[in-house]
């Protein structure tokens, strides 16, 4: 970028998250952009702040039975079941392609035990071309009666702490919204040593086919994403921003630059665009363009000056 300081026609879109610098605050959310290559024919990956890849586990996972997706009002449910090719093939086959671009690569990962998280993080920590890790804690923990790591502060603290203390790469912890008080989880992740927080993952939901009298997803329950959940996501980002000192990445229903700026104003230092990629593969680039124009029109020099500017008092 290298813009002249103070030139309002070339606003500074760069942001710092967890010690890494992004050329702009717009990333693609895990699970909605594959390993980057699927969308590469349609989007200039260099235009993105970062690509967050589909969640990776230690072993390949086949994923859930089908049907796996269903459209809902202003959103969709998915129960992909974290299908992925496993860390070994990811590092061998997918990472080299992605590293060839100027964009940051953030690897989303998950496990069903602290040991699995730890082993996986170690492999990723040793791989080239990764800028940061994003830890998905919306996963059941087989050591604790399949309670989700992200629904109990103690579990969150423990898994984050165990992983972080051995990690070279910055660690982003991705929070589940299916909790009574997300600030307690956010604080546990902060105490555990997270470098940044990203939120929200999908809301739990379901849909029924009244003709067959069956759930529309083979797995019955799935994760709700898309514009439908934006109000919930915004509220949680705002709460977490006010509860922790860590930088926050806002996710949930972002379709336009206006949506993205809403998240930044309530406290997100950066955003991730998820389901919207399915509607328009170029949406993230359009959001970056929209942000730039907004800054120029308002004579704002740096996008980071908008982070958390929400005036919380009403006249």
């Amino acid at each position: 970028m290298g813009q002249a300081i103070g030139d309002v026609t070339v606003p500074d879109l760069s942001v710092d998250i967890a010690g890494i610098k992004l050329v702009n605050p717009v990333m693609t959310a895990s699970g909605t952009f594959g390993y980057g290559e699927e969308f590469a024919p349609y989007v200039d990956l260099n235009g993105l702040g970062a690509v967050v890849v589909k969640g990776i586990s230690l072993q390949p996972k086949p994923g859930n039975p089908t049907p796996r997706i269903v459209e809902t009002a202003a959103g969709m449910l998915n129960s992909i079941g974290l299908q992925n090719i496993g860390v070994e093939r990811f590092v061998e086959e997918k990472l080299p392609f992605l590293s060839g671009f100027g964009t940051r690569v953030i690897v989303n990962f998950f496990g069903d035990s602290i040991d699995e998280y730890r082993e996986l993080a170690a492999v990723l920590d040793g791989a080239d071309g990764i800028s940061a890790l994003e830890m998905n804690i919306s996963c059941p923990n087989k050591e604790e009666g399949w309670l989700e790591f992200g629904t109990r502060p103690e579990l969150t603290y423990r898994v984050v702490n165990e992983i972080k203390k051995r990690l070279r790469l910055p660690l982003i912890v991705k929070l589940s919204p299916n909790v009574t008080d997300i600030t307690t989880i956010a604080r546990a992740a902060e105490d555990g040593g997270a470098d940044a927080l990203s939120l929200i993952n999908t809301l739990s939901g379901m849909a029924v086919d009244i003709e067959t009298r069956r759930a529309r997803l083979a797995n019955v329950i799935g994760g709700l994403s898309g514009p439908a959940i934006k109000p919930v996501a915004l509220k949680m980002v705002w709460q977490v921003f006010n509860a922790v000192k860590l930088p926050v990445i806002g996710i949930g229903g972002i379709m336009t630059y206006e949506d993205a700026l809403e998240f930044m104003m309530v406290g997100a230092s950066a955003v991730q665009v998820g389901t919207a990629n399915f509607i328009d593969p170029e949406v993230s680039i359009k959001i970056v363009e929209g942000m730039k124009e907004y800054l120029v029109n308002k004579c704002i020099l740096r996008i980071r000056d908008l982070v958390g500017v929400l005036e919380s008092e009403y006249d």
Partner: protein
Amino acid sequence: MVARVIYNKEVLPTYYLLGLGYGGRTAPSPGQFYMLKVNRGIDPFLRRPFGAYRVIRPDNGEDAVEILYKVVGKGTMLMSELCPGDGVDLLGPLGRGFHLHGGRGKHIMVAGGVGIVPFYILAERLICQEAGRAVLLFGGRGKEDLPGLGDFGKLGLVVKVATDNGEVGRRCLVTELLADEITGDSVVYACGPKGMLREVAGIAAEKNVPCYVSLDRVMACGVGACLGCAVRVALPPSYAEHEEGRMDVQPYKMVCRDGPVFDSREIEWDKL
């Protein structure tokens, strides 16, 4: 990639033919599809997949890629209201279409209702490549369920029709036509409802001839990124011991990227 609507006409009750400005796009191969966003706004929310029916190159006038569709729900209802000049966002052509078995024997295309879509371009190719005899078997409930039938007459291939009510062709299922038609040197291509495809696959398997089926799944991304349109594949026996231990062989393929056309022997028909 916004394409302009050139025409959008009802060809039969609930069936429409949508002509979209072609503008030097990549030509679709037989069986490929597009993801269409027909409405502004978020209701309905996702794109919808539609096969490429024909690419028309009139002497005068604008080239058009044609979408032949049936109104079944919210998205297709809105599509039916598109007017010339309206914009439609188009992603594609996507996916892997029909593999052409050049030269070999008898090429039997089996279509059920709107499952006719991929066969126009396929028939063109087969005829142009003089790839043996080409036969289209087309089934529907009645004469109003055979969209595009007239178009195929002009292509000069053998067309046989089956209807449930006997209005056109034989009063039988299209799979019965296939049972009569199939020979040991046939290649079968099929598109239509799940039950029909399963039946077709069975008939082809019995004769031990190649059979390719085009599958229909709800899709979100259309490009292999969301892993939503999975179908369960039968792992070849050779893989079973050797590779499954590594959990490395994925039991699911993606209809949008690995398909929509699959070798019928690959599909776990019970899990479809």
